[in-house]
């Protein structure tokens, strides 16, 4: 079964969602992510949804779950690349994704995460203890 690859970018982890997600894939992603946050001491999680034409309540729940789990492990989640049509539909659906920060693209998302690292006086280059 396919699993979604998780890339490491400095103190952040980047996930690009391009395929239609179903239950087992979503579960696998959450597991892999939790493991990797721990092993890399990541402080940020970037989820790129710029390829998604549809975000329904299932995906919304998944994003919220990932954000909640990451937060518990001291990592901030930023969802990037949401398409206008998707945003309009989500608003109509009533999904606020309140536990998640958003940014227009990966660059902006990384800036958000850097800012948080800076706020906590954590240098991006510092090695984990």
């Amino acid at each position: 079964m396919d699993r979604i690859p998780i890339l490491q970018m400095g103190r952040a982890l980047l996930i690009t969602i391009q395929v239609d997600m179903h239950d087992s894939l979503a579960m696998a992603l959450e597991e892999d992510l939790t493991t990797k946050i721990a092993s890399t001491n990541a402080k940020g999680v970037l989820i790129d949804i710029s390829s998604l034409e549809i975000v329904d309540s299932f995906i919304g729940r998944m994003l919220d779950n990932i954000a909640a789990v990451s937060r518990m492990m001291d990592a901030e989640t930023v969802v990037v690349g949401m398409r206008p049509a998707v945003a309009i539909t989500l608003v109509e659906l009533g999904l606020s994704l309140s536990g998640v920060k958003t940014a227009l693209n990966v660059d902006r998302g990384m800036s958000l995460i850097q800012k948080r690292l800076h706020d906590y006086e954590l240098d991006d280059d510092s090695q984990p203890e």
Partner: protein
Amino acid sequence: MIASRNEVLAIGSADDVVRVRQVVRTKAIEIGLSLVDQTKIVTAASEIARNTLAYGGGGTATVEVLENGERKGLRVVFEDQGPGIADLERALSDGYTTGKGLGLGLGGAKRLSSEFDIRSTLGKGTRVMISRWK
């Protein structure tokens, strides 16, 4: 009103939900719905299809292109022989923030559609109709 060109899809697995989305998307493009309207009806269909699978024990989705004079529309009817929904009103009004539950998909799907109809009998099954007009 004349309904034409039916396509019946079985919903028995997660892959079928994906297929429903693809077919609805294709038909929506065919009748010339705007990108936002396409997204709305495909998302609504996705919500109901997932419900049909998760709570209805599987079922069918019938996709129809509608014509009312010059106007074109798209209708999807979901049917299952599942346990049915006990409290329809509550199911329709539940917001996302209350967490899991049937209400999640139904209320949202209704807001995303031009027309919405739901019929359910306990122990017999559920039928949901959504449509989007151009």
